[in-house]
């Protein structure tokens, strides 16, 4: 079940996605985190953030959910000083630091602290958060801005830099290519899709922020398509993300071109989903005559 991201080996391709896993503490109540291929911890910014007004969450039938949390986090200095040592006690595997910002300077500052943190293996630069104003996604919707963040963060760090891309764009391939040309070591896609729900009784949006990020099984086909498009157009390793909720989904996402996967919304409704997927994966591999996962990465291309 082994796979690789840049020069880093993962014991399996299953990584809980940032924003759905905190710093692992809650999930350590129900399973040993050390079975995971990696952990992408809660998106971190330069300053502490409370995030958006409530409600931040909306149901989307059986297909998923909308969130507009707005990057609530205690700030990078607190994360490095308090959360990462705690995470290390619970988890000895590959740690991915998800960082976000409101300026190039923010991204560089936060990434540098993560680069120096001994617990962090990969820095995942979130240029795709749809839930904060004047930040996040603003950097992920044009190739020029995405390249500028990539170049600035690469110049200030030594660890592998993975750019987390937004699906809320007309041409994700041009943004992926811009990140590759600017020196990114890998890509992670997709972040949530901008969505909305309305409370028809109150005639008001359910989410206080009006719009939020749609995630869950409903976005899986879109994520798969985008991963495939990007895999065909770049040679960077890809972490595939979006609506994955079974071992079959993992295999499908890897066949589309992902070297590893992130599991997001599914963690919130089934806290043992990552463990369940890791345990089911050998049988799904055997049933599909897969000896090593490396055989199937991008096999449809």
């Amino acid at each position, binding site marked *: 079940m082994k796979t690789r991201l840049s020069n880093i080996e993962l014991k399996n391709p299953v990584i809980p996605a940032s924003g759905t896993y905190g710093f692992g503490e*809650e999930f350590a*109540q129900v399973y040993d985190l050390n079975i995971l291929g990696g952990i992408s911890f809660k998106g971190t910014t330069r300053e502490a953030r409370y995030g958006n007004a409530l409600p931040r*969450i909306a149901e989307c039938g*059986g297909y998923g*959910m909308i*969130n507009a949390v707005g990057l609530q986090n205690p700030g990078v200095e607190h994360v490095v000083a308090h959360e990462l040592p705690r995470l290390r006690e619970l988890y000895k595997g590959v740690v991915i630091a998800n960082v976000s910002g409101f300026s190039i300077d923010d991204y560089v500052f936060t990434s540098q602290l993560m680069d120096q943190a001994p617990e962090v293996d990969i820095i995942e630069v979130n240029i795709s958060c749809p839930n904060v104003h004047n930040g996040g996604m603003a950097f992920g919707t044009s190739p020029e801005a995405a390249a500028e963040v990539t170049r600035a963060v690469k110049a200030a760090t030594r660890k592998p830099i993975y750019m987390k891309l937004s699906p809320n764009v007309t041409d994700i391939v041009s943004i992926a290519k811009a990140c590759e040309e600017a020196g990114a070591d890998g890509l992670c896609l997709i972040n949530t899709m901008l969505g909305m729900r309305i409370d028809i009784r109150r005639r008001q949006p359910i989410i206080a922020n009006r719009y939020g990020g749609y995630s869950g099984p409903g976005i899986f086909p879109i994520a798969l398509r985008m991963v495939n498009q990007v895999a065909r157009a770049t040679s960077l390793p890809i972490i595939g993300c979006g609506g994955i909720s079974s071992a079959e989904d993992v295999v499908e996402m890897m066949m589309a071109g992902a070297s590893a996967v992130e599991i997001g919304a599914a963690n919130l*409704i089934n806290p043992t989903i990552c463990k369940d997927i890791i345990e089911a994966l050998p049988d799904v591999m055997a049933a599909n005559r897969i000896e090593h996962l490396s055989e199937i990465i991008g096999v449809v291309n």
Partner: protein
Amino acid sequence: MDLQKMKQTQFTILRNEPLTAEVWRMTLEGDAAAVSGIRPGQFVELQLPGLFLRRPISVCDAYDRLLIIIYKVVGKGTAAMAAMQAGMQLDVLTHLGNGYDLSLAGDHPLLVGGGVGVPPMYMLAKQLREQGKDVNVVLGFNTQSEVFSEEDFRALGCEVSVTTVDGSYGTKGFVTNALPAYSSYYYACGPLPMLRALAKAVSHDGELSMEERMGCGFGACMGCSIQTVNGPKRVCKDGPVFKASELKL
């Protein structure tokens, strides 16, 4: 407080019965380990067919292998619950949230429940009565036809007052119209305006159970974080019970 880890298990519905036109009581049976150690004020999350997010419901009582919840039909999730039959299985996360701190009750605790905020008061009253406390209970409803559980609290030996907004039963008005002259501490669950009025009406501190739309229900997603005097707190994990003095009401 000694909090147990959350547990995800299957429960079987033993009974599902209406108490009023909109309020139902569901009795579930599961593993003793999935029930044991549930504290008053904690909640559970049910996985329901056709819905993505689990539905958080406060615990009314929990003992042996039984879990009792009382819920009001307010949307798709609770409507689906009301349609469920005895014998059906439900995937349930238990031991969620912090629960009320019984050690602060003093000699005359006051328990206040408003509408569908009444159920968590039952397990709390039961345990406080087992400790030999004199328990005052005030239950607030809109109108007589919505009143439930009054006799259950009397059977525990509590002093019970009921208020209705329209005066069709008990004291006319709100719970704050029927508060006892003396209480050592208070515990409450109900609509936010009720909690605000209560915290203003009582001179000493107490504990309030907050309600928010939740994502996960166990502290991972930050979907239900509120601002308190001690910074942001997750209603699902750091709460749902907070000291009134900690909240920005």
